[in-house]
């Protein structure tokens, strides 16, 4: 049968962000694929060298539209460690609160996108409707639904009062119920099973070789989670479990993400329950002493790494951002080879790409 090339992207209904695949097909079978990035390359690493540490908080927030808070958190952690600033406990609690809300938001968004790509619009609508609860909480606290600008160097600029705590506890509990419902729908829909089981399977060995992190690694039984392994943001104080599954297919990633969202709600409720009094931020100096720092955190999609080098001025000498989805992108050609064209949507959405993160 003759071969032909199908372009997927830069604009295609499958992708929510610009990215280009050239799929070579034989009939409906994919035999080869070439990936091209850079459609949203904004040169943030280069820009950050021209801006002060304080301005950069808002710059790195723009790396990603979904996990914006964890970027600023990691960046601030690094700068604070360089500058020797200790963040007040209440500030750390609030940072963690936002991080976990963002994780719920990201996982629900992903579930919606996957369902949409599998032609399951109902779950897409439900997941995105339930995600509104999280967005509303974040909006009430920070004024922003996606870009919160909640972090400052030395703490956070948002605070929760008692009445907000009460209403948020109620709405998070209702969200927990809704996520359980979503899980029931997903688990009992036979077509959804047929479309995700044994699709895009990754073995633990492949995960290791390609340095893949986050929920995808955990779905293939690789037990890594920065929140537990290098506790930052007081994660060691909260009771949560790191979920792993052994199947490694899109189905395992789906249920794993739903379970993780439940764990995140658990953490959020603990934070609301035990929020200590006190200040939320301390003042930090504009200049940062010379040095270098590497800091890692667990973004919704996996390990996030910031390398920050300071030359003693008020601007960083170099900021390197490592985002979790670049290695998952590197393995996509392997995953796509030999599958049916109809499964491309499941596989591509299964690895949860964040193109803005990858391009920076």
């Amino acid at each position: 049968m003759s071969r032909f090339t199908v372009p997927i992207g830069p604009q295609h209904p499958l992708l929510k962000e610009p990215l280009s695949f050239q799929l070579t097909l034989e009939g409906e079978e994919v035999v080869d694929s070439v990936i091209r990035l850079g459609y949203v390359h904004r040169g943030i690493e280069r820009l950050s060298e021209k801006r002060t540490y304080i301005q950069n908080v808002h710059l790195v927030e723009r790396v990603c539209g979904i996990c914006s808070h964890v970027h600023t958190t990691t960046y601030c952690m690094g700068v604070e460690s360089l500058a020797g600033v200790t963040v007040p406990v209440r500030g750390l609690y609030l940072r963690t609160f936002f991080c976990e809300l963002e994780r719920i938001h990201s996982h629900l968004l992903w579930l919606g996108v996957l369902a949409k790509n599998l032609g399951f619009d109902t779950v897409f609508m439900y997941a995105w409707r339930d995600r509104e609860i999280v967005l509303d909480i974040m909006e009430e606290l920070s004024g922003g639904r996606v870009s919160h600008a909640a972090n400052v160097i030395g703490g956070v600029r948002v605070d929760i009062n008692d009445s907000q705590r009460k209403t948020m506890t109620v709405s998070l509990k209702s969200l927990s119920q809704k996520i359980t419902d979503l899980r029931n729908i997903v688990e009992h829909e036979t077509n959804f099973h047929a479309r995700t089981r044994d699709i895009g399977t990754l073995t633990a060995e492949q995960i290791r070789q390609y340095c893949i992190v986050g929920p995808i690694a955990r779905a293939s039984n690789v037990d890594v989670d920065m929140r537990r392994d290098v506790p930052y943001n007081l994660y060691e104080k909260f009771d949560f479990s790191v979920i792993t599954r052994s199947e490694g297919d899109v189905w395992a990633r789906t249920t794993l993400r739903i379970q993780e969202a439940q764990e995140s709600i658990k953490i959020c409720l603990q934070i609301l329950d035990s929020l200590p009094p006190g200040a939320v931020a301390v003042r930090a100096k504009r200049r940062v002493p010379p040095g270098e720092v590497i800091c890692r955190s667990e973004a919704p999609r996996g390990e996030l790494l910031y390398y920050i080098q300071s030359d003693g001025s008020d601007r960083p000498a170099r900021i390197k951002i490592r985002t979790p989805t670049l290695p998952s992108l590197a393995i996509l050609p392997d995953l796509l080879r030999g599958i049916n064209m109809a499964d491309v949507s499941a596989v591509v959405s299964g690895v949860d790409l964040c193109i803005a993160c990858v391009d920076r």
Partner: protein
Amino acid sequence: MSFKVLVFPGFGFLFCLAMLAEWIDRRMIARFQGRVGPPVFQPLADFIKLLGKEDLLPTGVNEKLMAALPLISLAACLTAGMYIPVAGVSVNNFEGDLIVVLFLLSLPSLLYFLAGWSSIGIYSILGGNRALLQFFSYEVPFLLALSGPAILNSSWNITDIMVNQSTSIWAIFVLPVGFMLAFFGLIGKLKRDPLDIPKAQSEIVAGPLTEFSGRKLAIWHLANQIQTVVGIFLLVDTYFGGGVIESRLATFLLFSFLALLILVSLSVMSAMYARLRIDQLARLGWKRLIPLSLLQIAFIVWMGKGF
């Protein structure tokens, strides 16, 4: 004659029903998904808006063919509509019109494939291939399922089948499996979720219709909506005896209720299931549905003497 063609049961009537059916369908799905849904004039507004949009075609295609395909599709659906009794009122009928209607209703699927094949675009060709594969998977069970009531009432005239049932028993009570098969076939025929495989948006953009725009796209959509209405009426007439009872008003109400019921069931199916893959559908069609429909025919022939 021109009244029949243009107003009832021709274009005007079917057009209004198509718009209404689309609105009900969209509204129902929206409600199932926790949304509000569009207002009642939305389908008409969409249609008019599409009519006014720029009509573009890729270079190198046969322009006359591309313009003719949606029109033939629309004409086939409208002609099929002429022979379908509505609420017990049969305008045209002749012995064997069921076969003509079934042929006319399968024509849009073939034209759909042709549209994909003549569009040149890669997504269209993939979609066209899928449309043809899907055609073979649902069409055979659909035809066999609809021949069930015909054999049962020993007539190939839809009006006769309908009238006959109003004096004996509705076919759905004798052949529930046949109705399920016909219903499934209708979903495949209309390319609705979960069998929207040929136009799977996240995989091949819009399938065969990717390169169509403006007026031509509007006519494709209209043809599909009219096909929906005609298909639903056909199921009501063959499996529910057209809802015919003594009083004219009661027949009208019962017919509307049954048609609405099937339409809502279609919406429920759309909202409830994820899309199948084409090989999964082919497997389902050839391994399950076709043997089942053959068994059903054997069942009718076996019990045929009783009727």
